[in-house]
């Protein structure tokens, strides 16, 4: 008879730690997780549950389940918690929630935008960053934009654009860009001096801030009143100086902003007076296509000014480069290069 050596008895499994989050099976998974998040007795358990929620929300099926279990209301309530880590985890979960369509629907149905707004002034930059990400994902759709604008975000964002800390300052500018896609949002932004705020950020040391400031300014300046305000606040010279920035997105957005502003005669005069034509011509050789398209549109608009047109004609680089773009393979660029050439070669 062989001795029972290959088997061993095992001790009883140790009891689960009270802070450990274990997944429930089936339909109870989401309600259990939400109940662990909403309880306030064990804060460590709540924190762990929030972290688990952030991971679970990456799965669309789970995202639908937790939203049906009412996680949105719980998360918005936790944004006001005294514990910083809880707020950070809740805001991160909200950011993950807003990426999912079910989560966006839940945010819309629970009118979460006005509840999130006060937390944009949270002392923790991580919380603010996560909430900005949440709102950015939420405003990727039209309903989100309307909800955020109705929630009174625009004046706050304009204020934050100049008062926010450097590491997250680009986020309110990005969010403002989304908000002004709505007419109401655009009107509120212009009334709250958004143009001045964007111009102030054009000289920031962070490239992301400059990029988003220029991008938002360019979109704002599709409105005529914003063009006038921008010209009066010397935006043209600041944007011209950004045309040589090492980051290509900054150059592209600066060119786009100039493209919007110089549609008016005063804008054209401003750029000619601050000698912005030469940097524009040099930027025609930029390797990035998006930079080129914005520069081509700017050139086409600026060529109406006689002095600018003369400078472009006399430049050794302008017309040859434009011809090169026309003959290039990109149909979109070629079309706009043709327009620019016609504008430069126009004669009265």
């Amino acid at each position, binding site marked *: 008879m062989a001795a029972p050596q290959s088997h061993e008895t095992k001790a009883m499994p140790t009891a689960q730690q009270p802070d450990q989050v274990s997944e429930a099976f089936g339909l109870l998974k989401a309600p259990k997780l939400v109940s662990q998040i909403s309880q306030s007795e064990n804060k460590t358990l709540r924190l762990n549950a929030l972290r688990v929620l952030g991971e679970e929300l990456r*799965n669309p099926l789970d995202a639908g389940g937790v939203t049906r279990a009412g996680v949105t209301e719980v998360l918005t309530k936790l944004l006001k918690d005294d514990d910083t880590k809880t707020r950070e985890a809740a805001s991160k979960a909200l950011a993950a929630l807003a990426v999912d369509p079910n989560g966006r629907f839940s945010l819309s149905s629970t009118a979460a935008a006005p509840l999130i707004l006060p937390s944009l002034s949270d002392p923790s930059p991580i919380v603010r960053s996560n909430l900005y990400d949440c709102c950015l994902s939420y405003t990727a759709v039209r309903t989100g934009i309307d909800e955020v604008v109705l929630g009174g975000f625009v004046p706050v964002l304009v204020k934050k654009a100049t008062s926010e800390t450097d590491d997250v300052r680009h986020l309110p500018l990005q969010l403002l860009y989304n908000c002004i896609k709505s007419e109401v949002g655009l009107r509120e932004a212009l009334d709250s001096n958004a143009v001045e705020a964007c111009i102030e950020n054009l000289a920031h040391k962070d490239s992301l801030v400059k990029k988003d400031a220029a991008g938002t300014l360019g979109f704002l300046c*599709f409105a005529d009143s914003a063009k006038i305000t921008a010209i009066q606040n010397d935006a043209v010279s600041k944007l011209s100086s950004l045309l040589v920035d090492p980051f290509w997105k900054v150059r592209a957005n600066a060119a*786009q902003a100039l*493209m919007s502003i110089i549609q008016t005669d005063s804008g054209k005069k401003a750029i000619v007076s601050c000698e912005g034509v030469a940097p524009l011509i040099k930027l025609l050789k930029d390797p990035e296509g998006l930079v080129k398209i914005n520069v081509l549109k700017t050139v*086409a608009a600026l060529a*109406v000014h006689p002095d600018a047109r003369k400078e472009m004609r006399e430049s050794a680089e302008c017309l040859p480069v434009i011809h090169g773009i026309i003959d290039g393979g990109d149909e979109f660029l070629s079309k706009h290069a043709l*327009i620019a050439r016609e504008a430069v070669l126009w004669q009265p």
Partner: protein
Amino acid sequence: MASNAAYDFSSAPQSVPIKRNAAAAKYRDDEENMLSAGNNIMFDSRVVRGNTYAAQVVTQEQQRQQQVYNRNEKARQARLESKRLQGMAPPGTPPPVDGRAHMDVQTDNFLEELTDRPIEATIETQTEAFLDRPPSPLFVPAKNGEDKETQIESGDLFDFDLEVEPILDVLVGKTLEVSMLELMEEEELAAIRAQQEKFEMMRNAELSEVQRLEYEAKRKFAEKQRRKKQEREFKEAQDELKEKVAARAFAKTYLSDLHANVFESLEETGHFYDPVRKEVGEVFLPWLMGEVSTSLTAVAQAYAAADGIIKASLEKAKDIRVQAVADYEAEQKRIAEEAAAKKAEEERLAAEAAAAAAAAEENGENGEDQ
């Protein structure tokens, strides 16, 4: 109470108690023969239930319960006994009459002072706790039969390493798949965002083109309006010029004979004259005429003066004559008048005298009457 029997009684069997009621003691009623719920054998705890072939195991819990029950029963009996004894206590001392009080008095032969308490010492003792009678050992029948054994060798049931492999494959595969899906989703989201940004830039470029065309249209419209205005002003100026030219031509034509006509009319009105002729006509001849007229006037005046003198003298003569006649007549008249006046005076005086006389007569009559 622990029993060494196979079973125990919940209530020990007793003899039938002697009932005071003789009729009830001797005879039982017919109802007592009937089974009631209290005497139902199915509910009688004295009736052993279960297998009667095997040993009835009385558990320690049942034994403890039985002991507790017995203890409680004894305590209840003791309480009843003490109550009964209390009921039979001797009567106490009657209360003292009014004004008197009972005193404890020693009636012993040898008196002792009771003021001091006797020396007392407190000693405690505790009996051993009631030790439970240990339970009776379980009856284990003697072993009989043959020993047999078995052993599951490794590999008899299943090979763990072989069986766990597909499970691990599934677990690892699912984990990897989910991770891959998550990564792909992140990449897809990033690609979507990049595409969205690119689309927005291209859309902004198109919007800018639309704005450029709008502003171009506005400029062209403004230019067109300016040119139309300029043309209108030019046309107005042209019309005005034409009118001026026409007016000038007409005026020129109209005024071409003006000089001649003017001079002619001036000449007719006498603005152009021969000075000598004029002087002769305006100075000399009037003077001459004046002189002639003066002299003729003087002659005429002389003649008139002469005529006047003559006439005057004739007149004067006439007048003198007339005057004289008049004087004469006047004198005559005066004389007549004087005569008349005198006559009249006289008549008056006569009348007055008559009147006075009459009056005097009257007065005299009146005086008499009075």
